[in-house]
C-alpha cells in the first residue's frame, strides 16, 4: 500500500510543481493581454490600468498564485480576459468534445494495435507489413487530416467540420447519435490511424523482446502450443512497457488531438487553446496546460496501479 501512497503523493507534487512553474513562466513573459489593449488607440491608458487593477494584476506573485489556485480548486481556473468569463465553464463542453473524440480513437487504435503487434512479432523475419506500418508512421496527423478533408469534399459522404449539424436540437435522440457519429467518423479515423503505427510498433517490440527471453524458449521446449505461448505466456510478460504506454495514451487524451481538431474544425479544446494563445489569454492557456498535465499525471498513476497488479516482482518490493 505504501507504494501506491508514495506514487499518489508524488503525483500531487508534480502537479504543484508544474502549476507554479507555468504560472512563473507566464509571469516572466514580456507583454501580456493588456499590451495589445494599450496599443489600441480607442482605449485610454487609465481604462487599461483600471482593468489591470480589477483583475488583480498588481498583486504580488504568491498572492496571485494563491487566488488562481483557490479558483482552480473551485473549478473556475481563474478568469479569461479575452472571453470575459471564468475559464472553467468555457472549458467543460469543449473538454467533453475532445474526450469523446480521443477516447474513441485511442480505444480503436489499441484494439487494432495489440493483435497487429502480436501477429507481426510472431512472424518475425517473414513479411508482416512492417514496411506499411513504418510508412504510416511517417505520415503526420496533419497530413492525414488534410487528406481526410479532401476525401470529405470529393466524396460528399462526410460532413465538413463541426460536431453536429444545424437543427441538431430538433432531432430525435437516435438521429442525434447518428449525426454525432457521422461527424466523428473522419476525425476519429485520422486520429486512430495516427496512433496505430506507434502503438503497434511498441507492441511488436515488447513481444519480440519477451519472445527472446529464455523462459519463452523454455516454454517452447515444453511443447506449449504456439497460440497459447504467444497469448498466455509471452504477452503477459511483455506487459510492462505496454502498460506504461497505455498510461501515456490515457495521459495524452487531451493533447493528442490538437492539430486534428484545428484542421477538421472539431469544437474541442484545441481551437480554443489556439485562440487563447494568439490572444495571449493566459487564463485559458494555463487552465488547458494544467488540465492536460493533470491527465498525464493521472495516466501515469493508472499505469503504476496496473503494473502493480500485473507484475508480482513490483508487488514484492
Amino acid at each position, binding site marked *: 500500500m505504501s507504494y501506491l501512497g508514495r506514487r499518489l503523493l508524488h503525483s500531487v507534487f*508534480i502537479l504543484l*510543481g*508544474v502549476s507554479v*512553474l*507555468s504560472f512563473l*513562466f*507566464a509571469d*516572466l*513573459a*514580456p*507583454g501580456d493581454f493588456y499590451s495589445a489593449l494599450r496599443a489600441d488607440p480607442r482605449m485610454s491608458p487609465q481604462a487599461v490600468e483600471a482593468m489591470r487593477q480589477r483583475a488583480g494584476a498588481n498583486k504580488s506573485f504568491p498572492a496571485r498564485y494563491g487566488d488562481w489556485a483557490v479558483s482552480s480548486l473551485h473549478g473556475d481556473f481563474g478568469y479569461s480576459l479575452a472571453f470575459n468569463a471564468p475559464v472553467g465553464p468555457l472549458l467543460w463542453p469543449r473538454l467533453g468534445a475532445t474526450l469523446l473524440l480521443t477516447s474513441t480513437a485511442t480505444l480503436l487504435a489499441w484494439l487494432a494495435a495489440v493483435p497487429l503487434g502480436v501477429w507481426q512479432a510472431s512472424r518475425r523475419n517473414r513479411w508482416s507489413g512492417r514496411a506499411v506500418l*513504418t*510508412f504510416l*508512421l*511517417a*505520415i*503526420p496527423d*496533419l*497530413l492525414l487530416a*488534410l487528406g481526410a*478533408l*479532401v476525401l470529405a*469534399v*470529393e466524396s460528399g459522404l462526410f460532413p465538413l467540420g463541426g460536431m453536429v449539424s444545424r437543427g441538431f436540437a430538433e432531432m430525435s435522440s437516435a438521429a442525434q447519435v447518428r449525426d454525432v457519429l457521422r461527424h466523428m467518423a473522419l476525425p476519429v479515423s485520422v486520429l486512430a490511424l495516427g496512433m496505430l503505427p506507434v502503438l503497434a510498433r511498441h507492441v511488436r517490440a515488447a513481444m519480440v523482446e519477451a519472445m527472446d527471453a529464455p523462459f519463452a524458449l523454455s516454454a517452447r521446449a515444453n511443447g506449449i502450443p504456439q497460440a497459447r505461448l504467444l497469448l498466455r505466456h509471452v504477452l503477459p510478460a511483455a506487459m510492462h512497457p505496454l502498460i506504461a504506454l497505455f498510461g501515456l495514451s490515457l*495521459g*495524452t487524451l*487531451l*493533447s493528442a488531438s*490538437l*492539430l486534428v481538431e*484545428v*484542421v477538421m474544425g472539431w469544437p474541442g479544446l484545441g481551437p480554443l*487553446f*489556439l485562440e*487563447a*494563445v*494568439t490572444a*495571449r489569454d*493566459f487564463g485559458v*492557456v*494555463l487552465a*488547458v*496546460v494544467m488540465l*492536460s*498535465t493533470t*491527465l*498525464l*499525471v493521472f495516466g*501515469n498513476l493508472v499505469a503504476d496501479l496496473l503494473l502493480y497488479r500485473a507484475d508480482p516482482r513490483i508487488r514484492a518490493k
Partner: protein
Amino acid sequence: MKLGLAFLIAIHAAVFLAPWLAPYDYAEQHRDFAFAPPSRIHIFDERGSVHRPFVYGVVQDLGSGSYREQRGAAYPIRIFAGGSLVGVDSPGALFLLGSDGFGRDVFSRLLYGARISLLTGLIAAMLSAGIGLLLGTLAGYFRGWVDQSLMRGGELMMALPWLYLLLAVRALLPLHVSTLRTFVLMIVIIGGIGWVRPARLIRAVVLSARESDFVLAARGFGASHFYLLRRHILPFTTGVVVTQATVLIPQYILAEVSLSFLGLGVGEPVPSWGNMLSEGMQYHAMVSHPWLLVPGFATVAILLAYLKVGDALTERTVTY
C-alpha cells in the same frame, strides 16, 4: 539504411544550395499566376519536331480560374540563367510544382522552406542530445543529490503535454519578431523540452560503465574523474547520443511544421513547410490545387528516411 542516409544527404545538400537551385526567390510574386498548376515541360512542338526542353506561356481563364497553355509562346528552359540552375525568360514562368495564391513558385519555396524546417529539426535535436549528454553524464557519474534532482526534474518535464507546452511557451513570447529570432526561439523551445529521454538513456549507459570492473581497475591505478570520463565512460555514450539525435530529428521537424502550420512559427513571407501547408488549408484549396500539399509529402519522405536510419541505428546499438 544506406538508401535512407543517401536520400537525407542529397536533400540536405539541395537545401543548402537552395539559392542556386531555386528558379525564383521565395518571396517573388507573379500576380498574374495565382494558383498556377505545375508547368508542363515539352520537348515536341505542335508540329512534332524536337527541341531542347521548353514551357509554354499560360493564361488564366477568368471564368473558371483554370489555366491553359498558349501554344504560340514557347520559353526554352535555360541552365544557369540568372544565377540559378534552371529558369525561363520573362514573361514566361517555370513553376515546377505550381504556384501559390500570391503566384509564388512552390518549388522554390519548398527548397527555402526546408531550410527552416529541416535545420530546426537538426539543430534542436543536437541541442536536446547535448543537454541530455551533459545532464545524463552528470547524473550517472556523480549519483547522489545531483542524480536525484536531475531525474526528478526530468520527470516533471515528462509530465508536461509537450505540444500544448510548445504553444504556451511560444505564446508567452512576442508574436511578431524577426525571422532569425523566431527561428532561434523555436530551436531553443523545441530542443529544450526533449532532453529528458536522451538524458535518461545516457545516464543508464554512464551508470553501467561507471560500475564496470574496468573503471574499478583504473581507479585502482589512481585515475582522476576527468580521465575516467574521457577514456572509459564517454566513448560508450556516442552510440546512444547519435541514435537519440536521429530519433529526435523527425519528431522535431514535425514539431516545427505543426508550430508554423498553426501560425506560431516563422512569419510570412519566409516559407516553412508548416506555413506553406496552412495556406493549402485556408482556402480549402487542396481539391483544386493539390500541389499545395507538396510540403506535406516532402515531410513524409524526410520522416520516412529518418525513421529508417533511426531504426537501423537503434537495432545496431541494441545488438552491440
